């Protein structure tokens, strides 16, 4: 594969709380290729958003990136000064947030907010920036952009505000677009529109995109690659077809199994993964998922699970998968 746009190695973002250290992200590694969409999937509290914030270096105390490195092209993001980072944010890396209702400054017009970002990063004149803002608003599908430039956020619906936020995020044609659950707060009917828009724009700009979601339907529609997170750690990573067709990690299996299908009979029970995800404050050694895992073994409680390159092409972090692979490998080896 080509040189990745973004590569994250052994990222650890911890929050020092009075009750202990919350290991929100604990040893995460992945690569993002240009033009591809990586979906980060996981339950609430699995560290998806903290991962995004870490990449943007928006982690605030008591949180801190304690280890790992994040490279954007050939730049080490963790070594940049805050000022250099400000240049990068919204310029080379754009971010879209979960709640469009509260992500815009209520006291300035939409136009002012788009123009502000453009001027901050490109040094364009006010006139150029305004022309560009109109163009961006048209691009994200806001009707009559000229007239709406002077409207305030409260005069826009949720879907329209998310379009505005997308316009701001792509104003400088970023290399990476990070979307943190961009449709969670929207009506179902609007969700598909926004996702299609994001997909169109990502293709048009040729940027890479990190899409954070807990909706596996969104993943199947949008992703090229999938990273499944659980309790701050990666559990499985691979391209979307592999993950959906051959999920290996028991957690991924459970997630896919809990999707409601139309042909399920009404009497059949909704499947779920029993138990709740642990809060990773001072986590014990071993696999965080073991208490809910159907394939849990003794070793899961004592040793951190290994990274296993599976025969099917994904990477799973699991003792059970290692055992399965070992058995399969041995079987293959034995056959002449």
């Amino acid at each position, binding site marked *: 594969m080509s040189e990745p746009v973004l590569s994250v190695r052994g990222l650890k973002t911890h929050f020092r709380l009075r009750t202990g250290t919350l290991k929100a992200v604990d040893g995460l590694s992945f690569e993002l290729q240009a033009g591809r969409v990586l979906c980060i999937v996981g339950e609430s509290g699995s560290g998806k958003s903290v991962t995004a914030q870490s990449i943007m270096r*928006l982690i605030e105390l008591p949180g801190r990136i304690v280890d790992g490195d994040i490279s954007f092209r050939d730049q080490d993001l963790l070594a940049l000064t805050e000022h250099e980072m400000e240049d990068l*944010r919204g310029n080379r890396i754009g971010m879209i947030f979960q709640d469009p209702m509260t*992500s815009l400054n209520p006291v300035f017009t939409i136009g002012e907010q788009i123009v502000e970002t453009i001027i901050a990063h490109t040094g364009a004149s006010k006139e150029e920036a305004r022309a560009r803002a*109109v163009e961006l608003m048209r691009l994200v599908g806001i009707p009559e952009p000229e007239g709406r430039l002077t409207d305030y956020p409260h005069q826009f619906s949720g879907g329209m505000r998310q379009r505005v936020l997308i316009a701001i995020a792509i104003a400088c044609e970023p290399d990476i677009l990070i979307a943190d659950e961009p449709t969670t707060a929207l009506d179902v009917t609007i969700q598909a529109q926004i996702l299609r828009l994001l997909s169109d724009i990502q293709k048009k700009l040729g940027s890479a995109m990190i899409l954070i979601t807990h909706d596996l339907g969104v993943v199947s529609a949008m992703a090229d690659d999938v990273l499944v997170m659980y309790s701050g750690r990666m559990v499985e990573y691979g391209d979307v077809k592999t993950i959906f067709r051959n999920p290996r990690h028991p957690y991924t299996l459970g997630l896919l199994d809990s999707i409601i299908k139309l042909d399920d009979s009404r009497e059949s029970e909704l499947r779920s993964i029993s138990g709740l995800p642990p809060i990773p404050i001072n986590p014990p050694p071993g696999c965080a998922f073991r208490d809910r895992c159907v394939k849990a073994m003794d070793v899961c409680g004592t040793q951190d699970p290994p990274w296993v390159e599976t025969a099917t092409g994904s990477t799973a972090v699991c003792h059970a998968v290692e055992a399965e692979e070992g058995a399969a490998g041995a079987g293959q080896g034995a056959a002449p």
Partner: protein
Amino acid sequence: MTDAPGLHGQSMRQRSAADLRRENLHIMWRTLTLAWHAYAKDKAAVGALIFMIIVVLIAIFAPYISPHDPTEAVGTRGGLPGTDGLLLGGDMDGRDMLSRLFWGGRVSLLIGVVPTVAATFIAVVLGLFAGYIGGWADQVVMRILDVFFAFPLVLLAIVIAGILDPGVATLILSITVALVPYIARLVRTTTVSVKQEPYIEAARAGGATTPTILTRYILPNMLAPVIVYSTTLIGLMMVVGSGLSFLGLGIQPPDADWGTMVSDGRAVLKRAPHATAFPGFVIVIVSLAFSFIGDGLRDALDPRARVR
């Protein structure tokens, strides 16, 4: 979507600089008009504004419109309204009440408005700093302010005024200092809550620098409650100023402000209640007017209240 112009395309026709300037002016004018409409929806605020304009004009032109010299006895002591040809009667020394009210407004407005405005400015800077930076900065600034806070406002003002020479400048300075902790607390609390709004993180993700976040995101979103609070303090400060003058730390007799007139009137309260009632009434009305103006300003500053 399909016929949307390319990202690099210059689809907008170029406008001349003059056009743009005219357009900017137009937008500014429109914002002002909308703000005025939001303000004007509050009838009490409009009434208060008109009233205050009249009061301020009277104070400014007091030397020309006062029927008598405010420091000279022109009637009987404690003369009731209408006696000696004095519309509002005379005070305990027989000075014309009406003229004294006109002149007193000059001092009262000054010691009500100037310290409050000055203290608000200082408090906004301190509160923003403490609230935004948090941590040690918060601790240092707020603990120092807590020390001031521990004394009652009036007592603190008395201490400061006592050190300095009596006069209007002393009044203004001492009230300003005493007032800062009160407003700074509010600014800090509001700053902390605005700081946690998602649009702050979104702004940072868009590459906004700290000065931008402070001036364009936190300050304008924090200002409304501060303005409402500050305007209600104006009336109170007029009274506090009079208290200081009563103790001989501020205005010196025979000059007067409204508060001093109230306290002077005590001596003849039974015989001439009007000598206390008129200035007291004026203080109440003016204080109310400032609070109404504050409410109106809050609406004018809030884009959600502005309607086309």
